[in-house]
């Protein structure tokens, strides 16, 4: 952590190229947050780039007493929310139509070589999950990504999303529950597959 602040100070002192180290350290979580929020690889890349550029421009306003990661994720989530608002303002009817068919752009497999069965199964699961995530409300998508993928603490999530800790806890429960419902409604086999992990069946009336 300390090293990171030294690095930031170095960038602020004029070592611009050192910013690449910060980008490398955070590109994966930032990209994944963008990816889950916007739902496709192309926009996610643009958004991640925009987030880093905003971080670069605003770096001198970063307060050293706070964690840089929290500051950056908050900034990234704002970039994503802004993007989603713009999307909504655009009158694209096709967006909703596509939802049932082929919206999962990032999951296209350009390589046509046959894949091992296990991998195919894995990809199917991913597609099902990605589609289900997209049907979730924005704040549910965000909180689940921050918690499950980025493994952030409730405290960090509270800071990023401007919530109380208690709200983080209950919202995560509601988000998981909603995602579970969407998955059940879509009639996928995720639960039968993964329930092997827990060696327990899944009752469909939950």
């Amino acid at each position, binding site marked *: 952590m300390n090293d990171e602040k030294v690095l930031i100070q170095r960038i602020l002192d004029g070592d611009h190229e050192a910013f690449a180290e910060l*980008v490398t350290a955070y590109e994966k979580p930032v*990209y*994944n947050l963008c990816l889950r929020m916007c739902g496709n690889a192309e926009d996610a890349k643009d958004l991640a780039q925009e987030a880093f550029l905003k971080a670069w421009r605003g770096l001198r306003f970063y307060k050293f007493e706070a964690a840089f990661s929290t500051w950056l994720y908050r900034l990234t989530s704002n970039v994503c929310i802004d993007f989603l608002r713009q999307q909504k303002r655009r009158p694209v009817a096709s967006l909703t139509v596509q939802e049932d068919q082929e919206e999962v752009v990032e999951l296209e497999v350009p390589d046509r070589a046959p894949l091992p069965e296990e991998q195919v199964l894995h990809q199917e699961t991913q597609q099902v999950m990605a589609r289900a995530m997209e049907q979730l409300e924005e704040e549910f998508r965000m909180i689940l990504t921050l918690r499950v*993928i980025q493994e952030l603490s409730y405290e960090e999530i509270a800071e990023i999303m401007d919530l109380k800790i208690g709200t983080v806890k209950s919202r995560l429960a509601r988000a*998981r529950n909603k995602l579970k419902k969407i998955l059940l409604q879509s009639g996928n086999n995720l639960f039968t597959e993964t329930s092997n*992990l827990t060696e327990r069946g899944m009752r469909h009336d*939950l």
Partner: protein
Amino acid sequence: MTCEEALILISGQLDERNTEEEAAQLRKHLEHCESCRNLMDAFIAVDAGILSLEEDAPDDLCANVMEAVRQELPGKKVRTRWAGLAVAAALILAVGVGGLGLQNGKDTAQPETAAYSLLADAAEDAAAPSLYAARSYSTAAVLLDPQALADEKGAPVAVVPELYYELETCELETLETGELLYVLPDADAAAQLCRDHEGQLYEPSQSGSYSVSYAVIMP
């Protein structure tokens, strides 16, 4: 404990965020509630599914960011208001010198060329931001006149002490005095920002209708 209450604790259990008391309550509930036991399994599956979505960042992301960063470094900066003023000053000079040339009657081409090169120099000087960029932040704060900025922009300018979350998504312009000028989404945003954060609002001397407003941070 109701199943509704158990829902939150099941989720909390996955995150290891239940108190000992809560954990004990949940254990007791799960002993006799099959549907909540199933819910717990489902949540575990849901989490595993979400985690499976994690991807690596694109290979060229960092390079692209750095390319964009280099574009923004001093020396590549777009000209802003001082440049405009300098061009205006150069034009006045040019007209003056040009006029002199005409009065001389004979060779108008010579002074005209001189005037043009003068104009070009002035514009170039104004566009060279390294001078300004070299200034320390506090010096810059003294130099910036928010009222003049509001007049020049023809829109309200909010002066706030620090970067607030609302500003983080705004477009930016770099002023030659070194400050970053945040372009706010609408005319009322500056006033709103001042209300929320004890900022100071500067409105253009000539009132009118505005489509945007601005914010500057002066610590």
